[in-house]
């Protein structure tokens, strides 16, 4: 019996076929309907992951990796059933090196847990996608966040990955026990597995690049007369080589929603939330440069928050954007779009998207990592209303294509998952897709790793 064989590897308490447990592992934070696996297992060590994978491979059973279930594209939905590998019990933090600025973490370690562990060392891991996600999960989806404009996304911050391949073999993408800050040794396997969304293997350990904590931080909010003005301000701040740490955009609907939800009293206008990092002296210089550029673009309301509590207050207002948007239409569901375009095309894409929202009668406040040209429409709709659901679906397809037409991508940070496979084809073209398929076939010829996703 297959389930008995699973129990023999990890022990009976670490295998479950209970309905509630399987349903909990069959969905993430996206709108895709729950697709429960047939069984959930909790391996405690990488050797067990290998044994389980080899077993599933022999019996041709699909395998789905699971971290924190906080993804946004249905990456953990077991659309072909199979075994869900819940890796959260493997939670070791090891090999912290303060001189090499690196640390290795297993899938059970979340980004907040790592930063808490690093407290007192003067280092931090800056990639912040919002949710308290598993770091290996963030590597699997190529996550990004508000800090990417200065510190990069997951890709440049993952130095090595310990991968269990679909047949159970163990692969270290940069070689076992290595974390050089740069390397030119062969094809970049680390980068291949980052963003592979569980379709090429299990990421059972990641070696991450750490950064020094800034000495001083300042945050400000500025309101602009138009979206164009806010984006122009962003471009100029970047062109002035101000090493801005975060630059977030809220359209007037989002600014109003956030302001009301958090009781902040912001003007209802296109808004930028900026954060600067540096030494005390360099911060003062950055602040001066930023103020000048903001004023030149008609921005107003600039007041710097430097104390820990005030900064936390401003950012939690932004982080609560999801809930603030949901509060606009209580009882409805939310869906976050995710396109990324060259910054030069951002104003026109945003303006067209807003016109589309109005024409389609959709509630969709916008929030964006403007420094990267990446923005999200948080669409609030009644999923029980088939007509509305259809309008939403059509809108997201148009938005994806609009971004592609502007030279961008249909997904800046959330991944392809279940819902964007068709758009991926349009984005990469037939040769691109064929190359991806060749790689997939080479590593997972029986299509057992998270089938139905990405390709």
């Amino acid at each position, binding site marked *: 019996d297959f389930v008995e064989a699973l129990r023999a590897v990890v022990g009976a308490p670490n295998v479950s076929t209970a309905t509630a447990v399987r349903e909990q592992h069959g969905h993430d934070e996206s709108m895709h309907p729950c697709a429960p696996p047939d069984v959930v297992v909790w391996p405690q060590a990488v050797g067990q992951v290998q044994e389980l994978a080899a077993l599933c491979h022999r019996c041709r059973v699909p395998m789905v990796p699971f971290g924190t279930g906080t993804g946004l594209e249905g990456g953990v939905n077991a659309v072909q059933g199979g075994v869900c590998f819940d890796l959260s019990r493997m939670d070791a933090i090891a090999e912290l090196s303060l001189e090499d600025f690196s640390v290795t973490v297993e899938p059970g370690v979340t980004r907040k847990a790592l930063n808490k*562990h690093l*407290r007192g060392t003067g280092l931090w891991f800056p990639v912040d996608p919002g949710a308290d996600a598993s770091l290996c999960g963030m590597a699997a989806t190529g996550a990004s966040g508000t800090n990417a404009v200065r510190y990069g996304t997951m890709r440049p911050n993952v130095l090595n990955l310990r991968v269990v391949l679909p047949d159970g073999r163990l692969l270290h993408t940069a070689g076992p026990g290595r974390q050089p800050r740069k390397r030119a040794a062969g094809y970049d396997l680390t980068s291949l597995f980052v963003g592979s969304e569980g379709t090429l293997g299990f990421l059972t350990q990641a070696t991450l690049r750490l950064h*020094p904590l800034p000495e001083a931080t300042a945050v400000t909010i500025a309101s602009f007369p138009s979206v164009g003005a806010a984006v122009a301000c962003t471009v100029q701040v970047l062109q002035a080589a101000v090493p801005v740490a975060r630059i977030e955009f809220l359209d007037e609907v989002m600014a109003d929603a956030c302001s009301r939800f958090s009781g902040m009293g912001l003007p209802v206008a296109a808004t930028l939330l900026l954060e600067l990092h540096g030494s005390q002296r360099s911060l003062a210089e950055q602040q001066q440069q930023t103020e000048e550029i903001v004023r030149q673009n008609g921005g107003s309301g600039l007041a710097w928050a430097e104390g*820990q509590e005030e900064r936390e207050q401003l950012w939690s207002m932004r982080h609560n954007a999801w809930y603030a948007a949901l509060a606009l239409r209580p009882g409805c569901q939310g869906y976050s779009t995710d396109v990324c375009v060259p910054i030069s095309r951002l104003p026109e894409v945003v303006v067209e998207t807003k016109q589309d929202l109005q024409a389609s009668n959709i509630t969709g406040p916008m929030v964006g990592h403007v420094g990267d040209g990446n923005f999200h429409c948080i669409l609030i709709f009644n999923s029980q209303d088939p007509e509305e659901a259809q309008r939403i679906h059509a809108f997201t397809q148009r938005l994806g294509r609009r971004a592609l037409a502007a030279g961008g991508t249909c997904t800046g940070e959330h991944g392809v998952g279940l819902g964007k496979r068709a758009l991926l084809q349009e984005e990469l073209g037939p040769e691109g897709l064929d190359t991806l398929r060749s790689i997939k076939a080479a590593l997972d010829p029986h299509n057992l790793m998270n089938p139905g996703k990405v390709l």
Partner: protein
Amino acid sequence: VADLAPMSVWAVRVAPGGGVHTQGVKHSLNPFCEIALEEAVRLREAGDILTLSLPQETLRTALAMGADRAVLAELAEGAAAGPREVATALAALVQKLQPQLVLLGKQAIDDDCNQTGQLLAAMLDWPQGTFASRVQLEAGAVLVEREVDGGLETLRLRLPAVLTADLRLNEPRYATLPNIMKAKKKPLEVLPAAELGVAAGPPRLKVLQVREPPPRAGGERVESVESLLGKLRHAGRI
């Protein structure tokens, strides 16, 4: 005053002789003491900040956060470090150094006693403002807002005084690398606890037993109300 507690992310285990296993367990700054230290750093125009700790390891973090100098009170191997011992050591140090204000965390997260600040104030015969959520210095006095069961209470205490910090007093800063490097040069004095009057005798508190909670038993489905009542009676619940 900075106290130490085992880091909360580590699995807590009962040691063979009773008590909690602490060998090789990573220790960190007690969160409430961290808040007290942060408040002291913010009030620093009032003068030097001295931190005192019983076991060591994270005094350098306190220095990196902004304390000016540190004193490590070294206990004899295996000696008790409960509220009475800490308060005694602090009282001795206070007599020597004559500070105007002593800030402590309201309680340590390993024993949750919530006694050290109060014992210290009694030993020194100083006024105390415990569970502080807001602190404001005035000339010769301190205005303290305290979180009490009925709401918020504001006291004006003549200096010198003892205050204990509660969660909402502030958000402590992270130590940055430049400050960690500067902290290496700040003075750290080691004093044997006996010199601070901490008696080497047997502890006044005896821990009778420490045990883990019973392992979780599986649930059971019953077919009828009678069956449910029978099982509850059998388990002595009704």
